[in-house]
């Protein structure tokens, strides 16, 4: 895509910051449909980056490729975990991607409905704990300590997202907004350095959205977790993200600071007449 090249060069990536995720020319075909077409994207430590675009632009597909749900048809996904060596992760299984340190939430909430809120978060700790079948049967002191540690960490996380009072409730009984926050807590339980949020504000009312807005910023600042978020709520996107990537029909059509994006003619055109929340 030669015409987007100039915009790419003006990207204000702060030189001092360490790149965490580097996606180069990622392409994903479904049969004849090219859902993601040579999209490149970088995320640095401490950043909140937004990925926006009209419905069907390929944003979720992009997430699925990065997190290993789909194997991309082309391009590279490189991760540079803090204090570890760089890895090319195309085609890795989702659980390996998560273990490396990138956790996600889902656009259509995918909680473990018939498990309690606490248990949902505890699943997030799975890849950071080691109890095996033998340990579980004998339940020795190591196992007990690990279990208690897990519970403690999960309660702390529930506190951070404001769900402690629901800890023993089934996930399916939570109100919608709370379910979205639970997904965030569950993803955070995997100790990620990058959190990928797919439309976290979808279906939330304005107050909930505002609280979510604060929560995301807090996660980024106090937990040192970088955030890549897909969102249709333009107010939220413009408020909290440092950089924005815009996709349309699988292609990356623009990127830059919120101010750049707001005045970008291509973006305006893409959204014009589109029935979005923008």
């Amino acid at each position, binding site marked *: 895509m030669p015409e987007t090249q100039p915009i790419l060069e003006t990207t204000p990536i702060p030189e001092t910051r360490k790149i965490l995720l580097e996606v180069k020319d990622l392409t994903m075909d479904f049969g004849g449909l090219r859902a993601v077409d040579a999209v490149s994207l970088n995320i640095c430590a401490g950043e909140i980056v937004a990925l926006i675009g009209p419905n069907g632009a390929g944003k979720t597909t992009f997430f699925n490729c990065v997190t290993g*749900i789909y194997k991309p048809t082309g391009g590279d996904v490189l991760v540079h975990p803090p204090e570890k060596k760089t890895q090319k992760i195309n085609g890795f299984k989702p*659980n390996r991607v998560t273990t490396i340190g990138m956790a996600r939430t889902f656009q259509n909430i995918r909680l473990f409905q018939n498990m309690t809120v606490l248990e949902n978060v505890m699943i997030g700790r799975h890849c950071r704990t080691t109890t095996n079948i033998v340990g*579980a*049967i004998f339940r020795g002191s190591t196992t007990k300590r690990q*279990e208690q540690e897990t*519970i403690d960490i999960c309660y702390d996380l529930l506190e951070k997202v404001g769900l402690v009072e629901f800890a023993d409730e089934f996930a399916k009984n939570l109100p919608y907004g709370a379910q979205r926050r639970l997904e965030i807590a569950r993803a955070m339980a995997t100790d990620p350095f990058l959190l990928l949020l797919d439309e976290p504000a979808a279906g939330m009312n304005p107050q909930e959205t505002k609280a979510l807005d604060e929560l995301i910023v807090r996660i980024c600042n106090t937990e040192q977790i970088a955030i890549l978020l897909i969102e249709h709520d333009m107010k939220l996107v413009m408020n909290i993200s440092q950089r924005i990537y815009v996709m349309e029909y699988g292609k990356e059509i623009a990127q830059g600071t919120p101010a750049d994006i707001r005045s970008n003619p291509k973006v305006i055109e893409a959204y014009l007449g589109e029935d979005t929340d923008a």
Partner: protein
Amino acid sequence: MVDNFKRSFLVALWFVFLTFPLMVVKVNTLKNIVEWRWINMLWVAIGAFVLSLVWRWAMARRQLKSKAAEIGEEGLVKPGLGQRLLEDPKVFKPVLIVLALVTIVFPLLVDIYQTNIMVLALIFVVLGLGLNITVGLAGLLDLGYVAFFAVGAYTYGVLNTFWGFGFWISLPIGGLMGALFGIALGFPILRLRGDYLAIVTLGFGSIAKIVIENWEEVFNGAKGIAGIPRPGFFGAEMNIASATTYTYYLMILMVLFTIFITNRLKDSRIGRAWMALREDEIACVAMGVDMARTKLSAYAFGAFWAGLVGVVFAARNTYINPNSFTFMESALVLSIVVMGGMGSIIGVIIAALVLILMPEYLRAFSEYRMLMFGAVMVLMMIFRPEGLIANVRRKYAGRTVKTEEANA
């Protein structure tokens, strides 16, 4: 209400019409006349009318319930009576003590025949608990579960006839062989779901039986293996009566052992991963759970118990042949799990006892066994999809005091 009566009346008429040729008309070929049994028509009408009314009433109740649940009025949707009883320690403790006493004195009160049936029921309790791990906890359908049972039984049979292995050595080997075959089945079906999973596991069950039937040299084919020794007790000589009693106590211990182990696993990192896999496979792997390992462990662990009690089964019968390991047995165990409540241990025990003992004691019904299973399954799916005893949600111990202070 009037509407209900009217509709039930119509249903009754319809049934009378449908069953007319069967129930009323009878051609007597000897005398060459047609008998008209009008009275049968009345019975059909009354039966259909009453059943239809009961059905309508139950449906209405169910709708009320789900409406209440939708509105979220927790107070209206009380947990079932059984559940409330189980949660109340005042009721729970004495019940447990009485049950324990009855269990202990049971073989002294009844004859060998009944003890023997009880042993069979207990074997199915363990089978149910085992399959409950695969189906109830991990959500992986397995229609060929009886294959692992056969693996256990034949492990003992073969080891005994060829090398004279005793019961106690064969027991763990049988279990491990079951687990091994569980993994062997698990590998090819890691990626399958739903219908495909059902078909492949069904096929696996049939293959196991066919192999046993046709491999004469090792398994003695359809003739089966006879003269398998009963469980030994430090080489003590036992007559049939005491051997049966001994097997009974052995099975009681085995059931307790199974409950203990499955409970431990259920409340562990592994058990939670199994449940997460059942709830949402994609979310589960996206949260860092290794799907292959979790699925294989669920299959292996479920199959382990089948292999283990397979050995006991061979020892109890002293004779095994392929006909003990048909699809019917798989279906039976699956019914136990479904009826008992996916993931609920007490529910599975009750269901196993009911489904095994009922046909034994109500001989009149045993011919209609499969019919009744079918009816029970359909009714369960409609009225209590969560099983007799719904899986209670687990509450975890709170945070350690240290963090609580830190947060206060």
